């Protein structure tokens, strides 16, 4: 006789295939991104003092609080443990000046979490990079507060780089190419210049980026195509007129370029997922960044380049390799 399912005996668990799962979870992706951002934050603390750490903590706390509040109001599952709001808060702090008033930071992060991400349904479902949405709102609403720069004062070891008093891209815009000729590239690379907390030290950002690539949290497509296209585009104009356009490597080492390529332009959900789509996305970001830097209204174009390319993401996801077994349709 076939036994009826007896309730005394524990019943079998039934689930759909597959019956094994990779260990990688969303928390794994997010906390690895957080780890990758630590060198940039440490560099910010080293050059600008503990004001950087304070701002980072304010932003991260605001992000977590807003996320929890948002999910509470919407009656959704609380997901603050997965670390995505910590990453958002830290990234926001890293692209701000260490002198940013706390209320501007709180406002920017709140906009990022609530209007940039929450109302679309949370992580991965927002069309635009939430960090950059919050930053853009703050930048446009409070341009003066967002552009207060302090000189780097390394905590120990290095001497303060005193060649320029504004971030290198501002100097380029205001004073022309000649003003940067004396600036050692080494200062640009290790971040001994005025600027935002996490973007001045290209070396630290690169360490984080390489960590992400090595842990396979991101793929090479976007960072490589972003940086390569920006450099090649810059090279063309430098060759045309070096009096007007600076050496492309200077552009690569200054501003948000590295942080943008490795962390902002690889934000999950707002960028294409197919390999050709990602490469086109990266190239678009690189070209738009350089175009805005050369001729645009803003000094650094990375944020708006990425936001503009985010808008193209659904289209770029249509660019994909041929699927298996597709035969030409005979109409």
């Amino acid at each position: 006789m076939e036994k009826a399912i007896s309730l005394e005996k524990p019943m079998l668990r039934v689930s759909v295939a597959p019956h094994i799962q990779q260990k990688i979870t969303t928390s794994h992706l997010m906390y690895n991104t957080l780890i990758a951002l630590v060198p940039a934050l440490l560099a910010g603390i080293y050059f600008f003092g503990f004001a950087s750490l304070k701002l980072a903590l304010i932003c991260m706390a605001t992000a977590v609080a807003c996320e929890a509040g948002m999910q509470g109001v919407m009656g959704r599952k609380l997901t603050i443990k997965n670390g995505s709001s910590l990453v958002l808060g830290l990234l926001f702090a890293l692209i701000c000046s260490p002198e940013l008033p706390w209320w501007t930071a709180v406002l920017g992060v709140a906009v990022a979490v609530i209007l940039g991400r929450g109302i679309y349904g949370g992580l991965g479902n927002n069309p635009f990079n939430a960090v950059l949405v919050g930053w853009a709102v703050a930048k446009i609403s409070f341009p003066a507060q967002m552009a207060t720069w302090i000189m780097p004062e390394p905590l120990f070891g290095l001497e303060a780089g005193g060649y320029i008093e504004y971030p290198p891209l501002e100097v380029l815009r205001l004073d022309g190419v000649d003003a940067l000729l004396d600036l050692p590239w080494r200062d640009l690379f290790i971040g001994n210049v005025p600027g935002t907390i996490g973007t001045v030290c290209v070396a630290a950002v690169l360490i984080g980026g390489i960590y992400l690539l090595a842990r396979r949290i991101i793929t090479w497509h976007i960072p490589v195509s972003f940086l390569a296209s920006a450099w090649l585009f810059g090279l063309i104009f430098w060759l045309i007129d070096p009096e007007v356009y600076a050496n492309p490597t200077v552009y690569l080492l200054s501003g948000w370029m590295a942080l943008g390529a490795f962390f902002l332009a690889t934000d999950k959900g707002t960028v294409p997922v197919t390999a050709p789509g990602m490469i086109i996305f990266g190239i678009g970001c690189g070209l738009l960044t350089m175009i805005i830097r050369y001729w645009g209204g803003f000094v650094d174009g990375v944020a708006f380049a990425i936001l503009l390319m985010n808008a193209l993401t659904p289209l770029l996801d249509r660019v994909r390799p041929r699927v298996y077994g597709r035969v030409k349709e005979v109409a």
Partner: protein
Amino acid sequence: MGLKTSFRGVSLPPQKVSNPAIENAPLPKRVVLPLGQSENRVCKPVVEVGEHVKTGQLIGQSDDFLVAPVHSSVSGTVTEIRPWSDLSGNKMPSVIVESDGNDSWLEEIRAHEDFSDKASAQLLPDVKAAGVVETGPPSMPLHAKFTKPEPSKEFQFLVGIPQSKPVDTVIINGIDAEPGMAAKGAVLTKYSSEIADGIRILQKLIGSAQMVLAVGSNGSVSSPLSGELAGLGVQVFQGKDKYPLGLNPILIKCVTGREIPLPDGTEQDIGVAVVDAVTLVHLVEAVRDLKPQVDKIVSVSGAGITAVKNYKVRLGTLVQDLAEQLAGLQGDPVKVIAGGAMTGVALLSTDIPVTKETDALIFQTAAEAKSFSPDACINCGLCVRHCPSRLLPNELSKYCEFSMFEEARDKYLLHCIECGICAYVCPEKRPMLHLLRYGKRELSLA
């Protein structure tokens, strides 16, 4: 011979396999023999309740070309003929035989028939009569695989699917595709003479087709076998350790460079036949020993059995009865899976018989059993990076989740080969494969 093309996939955690020996599972006290492979393809029983049957005796047959005959796998008395639940919970008419414990075979079964001077026309009925079934997927009687396709297929030419071609390449799939499966590697080592004989039989059945033996990192071709294979003109394809190379659509692509035209095509449309290495052994027993298929080589793992073991199990043995007799099964399995860890079916109950399609059984304890979460997709793109069909599973899963099946079809949902990688890699642990299968099923009913 190596890969003709690269493919996307994942490296699954390696599995331990206990030595390639294939043990005979103890004779069951009772067997439940389903009379068909699917709901609408069922045999008629040719025995009656109370009748005494011998091992290998025909108990069910059908005129339908796509139904394999059923034989008793033990000797004993037919106690009941009634519906019994299959893997997916469908009731299938089944013959239940209480064993008398003697395992006395029908006398007609002779060992080592000389098949070398038999013609193909004589061999095919033998294969059909023995009821050998290709494990699949798709599962089908083996003789159907080598018979000229039905003429109605030609009409598909008009709708853009290539005309059916005669089989020009036969791939013997010796790659254990998923964790939990180890039978093919074991068969290659233990039954090397059967493999060689099986290839001879296939050559007779199909004629001038190129034979390719595909082996993975799990199995190796022993030196006497490789010499014999060279003599038979068989190429050996050395696969690598990457899932889903062992699944037929990807294996065909890697060996021949051809793709099965989806959504409606089959491997026959591109002139390829894939035969499971384990099925090949059963084929040899059918033709050489004139022995109907009454057993199946099944890999067993999990719940204390860390290294996969292979057993020759009598068809119709209930999973429950088998589990009670197996040594090494510890803990309380909470999930029992028929098939591999990636595509297998979790059983509703352990009162399910081992059939010709069963290739593995996995017993998972509470610690091993995984579950899925209903959370939203975060569009991380991991599934896209690994999809061997080059689909966008993230997008398809959302279409299927919200019942937008037509959109999913336009985005090539029907090209999914159901390998399960998207659900394996998903960081949100969404039931990706389930959503895609659900969408396919809804479309098939539309």
